[in-house]
């Protein structure tokens, strides 16, 4: 019997949830082996298994949606809920690090000198590279909006150009942040200032890399004609994620770079 009489997607049995969960075990126990027993094998094995799982799982979703037509409007609604809830969970993830920053910086202890930035810390000038980075991410928000409108209007060439622009801006941000990390006069082990600075900006940088990767996948799919002017949820999910990354940076910039300097 070939025809389902409902709008939902009953997926084929898949091995990826199992391999994904096991790769998480390998990564975490691999971290333990790295920290305590000076061996990176387990962790690298776990990272490799994780990357292979992600590649195949998302490849299968593209096959199910674009090639097999399973992503009806009802299914797409579920996917939208899923992405929104995931981004909300990421907001809470960052909220923790902002909490830590404000907890320590609003009431600096005597050990820090009673003021913020603490004694001995020379913070980065917020009007130099950090301000440029802010402009870069804001511009990338404009270019991705341009990409979306071009997609909805069927301008294939513009979608490719604007998506490429967004990705290049993301890479530019990452490179500038990396050079800032190298040049910074303080390190992660320089007290609570160093910890809050590098953990918060570090996780943000990781999310920029993830977002840029997601956008690159969208660019490849656009080149392969996967998106239509009415149905392109993968692109929308990437755009939502990218705007989230941008907003987190704005909070980082205002709180840590500007107010905290």
């Amino acid at each position: 019997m070939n025809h389902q009489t409902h709008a939902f997607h009953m997926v084929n049995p898949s091995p990826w949830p199992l391999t994904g969960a096991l790769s998480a075990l390998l990564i975490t126990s691999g971290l333990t082996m790295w920290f305590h027993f000076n061996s990176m094998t387990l962790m690298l094995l776990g990272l490799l298994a994780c990357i292979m799982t992600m590649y195949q799982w998302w490849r299968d979703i593209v096959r199910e949606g674009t090639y097999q037509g399973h992503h009806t409007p009802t299914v797409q609604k579920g996917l939208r809920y899923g992405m929104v809830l995931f981004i909300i969970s990421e907001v809470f993830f960052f909220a923790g690090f902002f909490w830590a920053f404000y907890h320590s910086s609003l009431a600096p202890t005597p050990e820090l000198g009673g003021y913020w930035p603490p004694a001995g810390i020379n913070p980065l000038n917020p009007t130099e590279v950090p301000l440029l980075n802010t402009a870069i991410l804001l511009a990338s928000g404009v270019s991705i909006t341009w990409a979306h409108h071009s997609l909805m209007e069927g301008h294939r060439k513009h979608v490719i150009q604007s998506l490429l622009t967004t990705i290049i801006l993301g890479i530019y941000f990452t490179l500038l942040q990396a050079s800032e990390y190298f040049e910074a006069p303080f390190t992660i082990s320089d007290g609570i200032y160093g910890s809050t600075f590098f953990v918060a900006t570090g996780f943000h940088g990781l999310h920029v890399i993830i977002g840029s990767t997601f956008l690159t996948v969208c660019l490849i799919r656009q080149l392969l004609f996967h998106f239509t002017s009415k149905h392109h949820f993968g692109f929308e999910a990437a755009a939502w994620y990218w705007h989230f990354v941008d907003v987190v940076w704005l909070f980082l910039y205002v709180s840590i770079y500007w107010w905290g300097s």
Partner: protein
Amino acid sequence: MYYKFSGFTQKLTGAWASDAYNPQGLRPVVSTEAPPIIFATPTKLTSSYPAYDYAGKNKVPELQKFFQKPDGLPVHLKRGLPDQMLYRTTMALTLGGTIYCLIALYKAAQPRNK
């Protein structure tokens, strides 16, 4: 004005005609080969599809036919050999790694002789 029952508020709320005519979200298809319709629509999708412009032509309709073959294969093995190789490699790494992990954790849990 169309209405639908909101499961969330347990009341009638406004709805679009599309919800009334397609409550499950299924749209009627013109033919069983629905997917080509999307790309064949000549409206505003693109002004022109010059096949020589951007790295090849649109292969999606043939891929759709390929992936919809009723051969009983699950989607992660649909392409045959390359899919199988990748699956087996992933599973081998994962299961092998898990065994290695359990052994390493067992050894790590042994007390060190002083």
